């Protein structure tokens, strides 16, 4: 097992090198650099040259790549141009905020999708099934910011049930439980909206999975044992329907840390998505490249985790 994991991890190296080269090449090709992007009205041509030299932007691209790659090997992603602090620190500052809602979303959407999927499979072609299907289409047809605005309008502005945005109440000096409660309250809307957005596809997934499983012989066996329908569905069928889905969990890994650019803006959530977007717009290469590589590593790790999870979840392929 550990040998396998080590080998897979080693295999990631060439892929990562490839990704780093491509990503770097793209950053070179993108029009503009940090100096032009920051559009300082007072910037003279001389000063611009000085700054480029200071940031190493004047070096030949290949040399820049090797400097960057070498630093990366020792865990140094460089300093963010715009934040004037180490990229790792910037990521660390914002990424957890994104993680919190992404994680809550993950849990919630899986639970809901599982239940809804199971029910709409069990009552295939029923009214419930049709309503769910239509709802899924509806959510797919609208941009995410739209659903976000809708939620803000109803729950924050009209009914005032929830805060309009942000992560904490301004000036709140609470800690411990009070703090958690406050953050929790602010989380409700973004998490709910993100859940509605991701739950649709998952529901379809679970539904198909359940439909498949329900036809299996062992479900017939379970019924023949005289078990209650509930036991049959939730114990015998659901466990099996969950198996292929579990592989998807690994693929969620980069999503957990990737941030949600648009919704973070709509809900004013201090996540990494907005920061990443800004780093792109401002050509803050260290941050942009660093975070991209961070996500690339997570993507590859996610693939690995998927494979491992699959083995863990399904006794048929569990390692001896």
């Amino acid at each position, binding site marked *: 097992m550990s040998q396998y994991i080590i080998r897979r991890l080693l295999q990631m190296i060439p892929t990562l090198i490839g990704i780093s080269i491509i990503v770097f090449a793209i950053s070179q090709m993108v029009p503009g650099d940090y100096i032009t992007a920051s559009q300082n009205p*007072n910037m003279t041509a001389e000063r611009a040259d000085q700054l480029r030299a200071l940031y190493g932007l004047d070096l030949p691209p290949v040399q820049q790549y090797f400097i960057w790659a070498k630093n990366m090997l020792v865990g140094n992603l460089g300093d963010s141009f715009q934040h004037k602090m180490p990229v790792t620190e910037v990521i660390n500052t914002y990424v957890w905020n994104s993680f919190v809602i992404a994680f809550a979303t993950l849990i919630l959407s899986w639970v809901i999708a599982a239940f809804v999927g199971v029910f709409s499979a069990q009552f295939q072609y029923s009214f419930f099934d049709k309503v769910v299907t239509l709802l899924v289409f509806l959510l797919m047809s609208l941009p995410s910011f739209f659903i976000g605005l809708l939620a803000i309008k109803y729950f924050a502005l009209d009914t005032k049930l929830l805060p309009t*945005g942000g992560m904490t109440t301004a000036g709140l000096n609470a800690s411990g439980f009070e703090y958690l409660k406050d953050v929790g309250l602010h989380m409700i809307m973004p998490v709910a909206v993100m859940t509605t957005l991701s739950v649709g596809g998952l529901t379809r997934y679970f539904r198909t999975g359940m439909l498949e499983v329900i036809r299996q012989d062992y479900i017939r066996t379970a019924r023949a044992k005289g078990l209650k329908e509930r036991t049959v569905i939730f114990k015998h069928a659901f466990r099996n329907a969950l198996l292929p889905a579990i592989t998807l969990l690994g693929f969620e890994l980069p999503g957990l840390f990737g941030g949600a650019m648009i919704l973070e803006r709509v809900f004013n959530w201090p996540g990494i998505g907005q920061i990443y977007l800004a780093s792109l717009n401002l050509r803050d290469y260290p941050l942009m490249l660093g975070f991209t590589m961070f996500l690339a590593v997570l993507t590859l790790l996610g693939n690995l985790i998927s494979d491992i999870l699959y083995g863990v979840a399904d006794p048929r392929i569990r390692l001896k």
Partner: protein
Amino acid sequence: ACGGGEEAASTDTTTPTETATDTTTPDETATEETGTDSESAIGFTEATDVATNNDVALARTDSAIIGTVAPQGVFNPLFHQTSYDYYVDYLVFPSLTKVKTDGTYENDLADDIKISDDNKTYTFHIRDDANYSDGTPVTASDYLFALKIYLDSSYDGQADPLSWNIVGGKEYNEGTATDISGVKVIDDKTVEVTVSDYDAMTQVNLGGVTPLSEAYYGKDYKQGDVSSIKAFNGKPMGAGPYKVTKYTAGQEVDFEANEGYYDGAPKIPKLIYKVTTDTTNLAMLQAGETDLDNITVNEDNVEELKATGFLDVDILKNNGYGYVAMNNNNPLFSDVKVRQALTYGLNRAEVVEAAYGPYAEVINIPQSDVSWAYTDENIDPYDYDVEKAKSLLDEAGWVEGADGIREKDGKKFEVNFSATADNPVVDALIPIMTENYEQLGIKLVVETLDFNAIMEKKDKGDYDMFFAAWGLTPDPDSTVYITDGAQNNSGYSNPEVDALYAKGKKELDINERKKIYAEAYQKINADAPEILMYQRTNMLAINGRLDGWDISPYKDFPLSLHQVEIAE
């Protein structure tokens, strides 16, 4: 100085660049505008009924919450890049001089400034009662320390300190000297700076420096490496009216009044900068969750804000203007008649009306109408005139072809136009421009691009026309219209204009400068190097419970925060 895309609004730094001489107040100029309903639309509207104020807001008896776009956490006046970091720095770091409502400067940390007759030696005296929030005095050597950081070879802030021409600055920067020979600390509170060359901005530049407590910041500083200074970005310490007590990235900055502030303790004990976004910032004001915020100006928003009754609405002219650049090096636009025709032939008034309603105005010179340098004498307003445009094109030799498109020497008049998307002006400009030019017999091919991509095209000179906007600083000096100027986007070149700008920069007398720039603007107006479009406005909405503001297009709201009080 002039330049900078308005797109990058978040980065328009406000390094003051004005001589401290009197001019007319900006408001006077504003009312001289030939605008239709602008008098009523632009300006300050007091809350009609503070009594309707929101309980949430009223409950904050000892604090105010100010909505802002998220700062980046670079809380150091030497290094910050966005206005939102600057909003913080305004409160914490006073400099020797500060801007006034009219765009001129007055003393702040300094209580006396002496300038030698040759304009090359500046002696600043720092107020005796000026102390940092940790109680230690602000000293002349702190000023020197700040200059050292500026001139350090690893300094990567936005300022261009070498251009200040401080004697010995270059040597320090290159590491050949360990001190700046042109800066002398006379005593604890007095410092003398010598420059090798001067111009209208020298005093502004030097006065704009913020002394940094060497005791606090300088412990680990070594020449050639400012990273130890940047390490303090998250915990700023200065002599300003407030001190930062807590910073939560992306969420809020909390302040506490600096009781020892030399201008008197601020009236509001606690301040919070809360991060808001333009989707909800208006709603938050309405709900009383914030006391002040920048709101996009448009009819909907103004109406909403005024309807609350308890919000002051302050609509201020923006220091900047939008324009459509024409590539003067392109044979298409090298003929002044063509450029004029394109200006006459575009219904700019309609574009502006469509985009901003009454909250922006068409302009004809590249200067804000609130500036002392503004003029409308002998300025052609280029009012929309299709016939005139057509005849100018005819004169230039562009005649209509069989397909209705003008041609000359077998070449069709087809223009590529690049603009960034998602901008209210562009939304209105594209359809109107397309249609207007079609009438002239010009085919407009439009593309929308990422802003940086447009800038890159501009740098390469590989473009016909693009839309962009400039932010203006108070001083009219600029490189936008001088031959090969750093910010000259359109390749415009007129030796007379070059000479006028050079003269204006060196002249210190404001009345003389006024004349020089008026002449330059008249020439530019006649040459029509680009199609000047509009000057728009900004809007501040402020809860009526806060009084005592002193805000102008030049003087941003944080500068008067220390004198604002909560009304009973």
